[in-house]
């Protein structure tokens, strides 16, 4: 067993979280003194191969097969199982994407392993990697270790590692070698940084694949673009009832802010789905994000932690939302928010 293998995600374009996982892999591979390799699966990977060839990697693998064109659990598990058997890596890292959540636990189980899912940090302790995960919706952190027998599988939380580092430190004078989601700059024929890219063709049969995926679709055109909003007032479970929504709407109106919500509010139909911020909703980065009665589950935080300033109003002083808040008020939102609305009106009028 040797080396660190990072499994990237590509569907005509790269999933940006791939580069965060690669940054994590590069960091831990350097600390462990192990070579770093990357792999990606699909049916048509010429573009991906060209992008990877420009990366400083010990090796890159394109796992190519017609049956990998449209994602299915069975094909992905079988293909990566064969690749990992042939490479025998110490450590296999993934970005914690929806697709990885679907197949990686099953892949790890094939090796008698348990995926260390959604890790936020990795460090080396006596030569062994220690993975940090969040428990109880971010209230606690936990250190996880692997017993060292067989490959160790781990996935990395969105935003936990900086993809930019992957771009800047290896881009060279010609600018970023790291392709982004849109319009990757291709750099080929640069022998000095070229990474040997190998095609790996797994043995797959159509009969192995039990699920039949349909087209990907969006429910309806999004008419609210929260990503462009400069001020957002966002409401969570703490609001308790639909009839209380006007309390936060009044604050949003007073500030001239967009109204947004965490998932449970939209699930309940109290606000439309298109106003949901988080991993399954929109990703926002306003100047100010006011989180009202939002505890700060990680699924919500990934959607808003890019905000310039975060204000949290919550009755629980230990709520994880305060971890990412610049300003916090611990108190009853039913008292604080109306007072804030009045104060904002006064401040604007002055």
């Amino acid at each position, binding site marked *: 067993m040797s080396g660190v293998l990072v499994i990237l995600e590509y569907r005509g374009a790269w999933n940006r979280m791939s580069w965060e996982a690669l940054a994590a892999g590069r960091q831990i591979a350097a600390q462990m003194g192990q070579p770093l390799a990357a792999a990606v699966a699909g049916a048509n990977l010429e573009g991906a191969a060209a992008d990877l060839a420009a990366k400083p990697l010990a090796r890159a693998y394109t796992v190519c097969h017609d049956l990998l064109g449209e994602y299915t*659990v*069975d094909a992905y598990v079988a293909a990566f199982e064969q690749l990992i058997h042939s490479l025998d890596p110490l450590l296999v890292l993934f970005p914690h994407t*929806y697709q990885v959540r*679907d197949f990686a*636990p*099953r892949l790890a*189980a*094939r090796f*008698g*392993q*348990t*995926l260390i899912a959604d890790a936020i940090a990795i460090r080396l302790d006596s030569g062994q990697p*220690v993975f940090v995960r*969040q*428990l*109880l919706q*971010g*209230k*606690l*952190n*936990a*250190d*996880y*270790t692997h*017993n060292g*027998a067989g490959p*160790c599988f781990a996935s990395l939380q969105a935003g936990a590692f900086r993809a930019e580092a992957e771009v800047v430190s290896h881009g060279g004078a010609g600018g970023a070698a790291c392709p982004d989601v849109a319009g990757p700059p291709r750099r080929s024929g640069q022998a000095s940084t070229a990474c040997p890219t190998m095609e790996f063709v797994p043995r797959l049969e159509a009969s192995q694949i039990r*699920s*039949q*995926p349909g*087209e*990907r679709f*969006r429910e309806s055109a*999004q008419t609210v673009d929260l990503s462009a909003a*400069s*001020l957002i007032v966002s409401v969570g479970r703490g609001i308790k009832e639909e009839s209380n929504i006007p309390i936060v709407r009044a604050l949003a109106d007073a*500030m001239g802010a967009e109204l947004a919500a965490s*998932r449970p509010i*939209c*699930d309940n139909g109290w606000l439309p*789905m298109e106003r949901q911020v988080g991993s*399954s909703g929109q990703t926002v980065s306003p*100047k100010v994000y006011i989180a009202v009665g939002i505890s700060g589950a990680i699924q919500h935080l990934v959607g808003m932690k890019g905000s310039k*300033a975060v*204000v*949290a109003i919550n009755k629980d002083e*230990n709520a*994880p939302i*305060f*971890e*990412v*808040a610049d*300003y916090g008020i*611990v108190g009853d939102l039913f*008292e*604080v928010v109306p007072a804030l609305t009045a*104060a*904002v009106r006064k*401040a*604007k009028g002055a």
Partner: protein
Amino acid sequence: MKIIVAVKQVPVRDSAIRVDAAGKWIEEEELSFEINEPDAYALEEALLLKDQHGGEVVVLCAGPERAGQTIREALAKGADRAIHIQCDDLASLDTLALARRLASAVEAEKADLILTGLQSDDLGLGQTGVVMAEMLGIPHATIVMQVEILDGWVRVKRELEDGWFQWVRMPMPALVTIQSGISPLRYATLMGIKKAKTKQVRRIAPDQLPSAAPPAVRLERVYLPQRRKETQMIAGTPAEAAAKLADVLKFEVRVL
């Protein structure tokens, strides 16, 4: 149609959490417990499917004595019977060992469909169902918003990132992990609560469980996270705090 719903009992949301003396897990003594929220939606989906197609809903739960309360509540809501894997070592198991227990407890049931929540609110690994499907050798789909049954197939609407979705068809038996909030939860009726007392709970004692291999992955230590940001806490009465915050928004952040 026979549907198994795997549920977990977790600390009540917004519980005050304290790390135990050994730093290995949390103090459970003073905590209240409830059904893991995504599992409540998996149970609801199972009961809806039973309403439509008939058949039987069997609740599966691994946990100590107190998990019996969560099982009784599921029976009161309309599940037909339950399997309680009695064990108090959940915190020391890795997913593989737990999934093995769950799979071995239901293998002989030959269920058509197994539902569970997409992740637990305590450990949040989001993979017990997936690994259970692997142990049972059946197909699975994760993060599902809608379930339809047709001629031996299950058709599910999977949630993808950024508001995208995808329908996926699988032959049954299959395992599906359910997203929170996909339909309103029902309450137990008085009649349901009465009936629950007469429903069968098969208890699997610790010595009947498959022997657990040494875990591949171990939880070494739990601790309070360090603040990554310097949070300026604004104190005072609601009116005072609100006035101070409005000043901050106007003069420091300059958005008013």
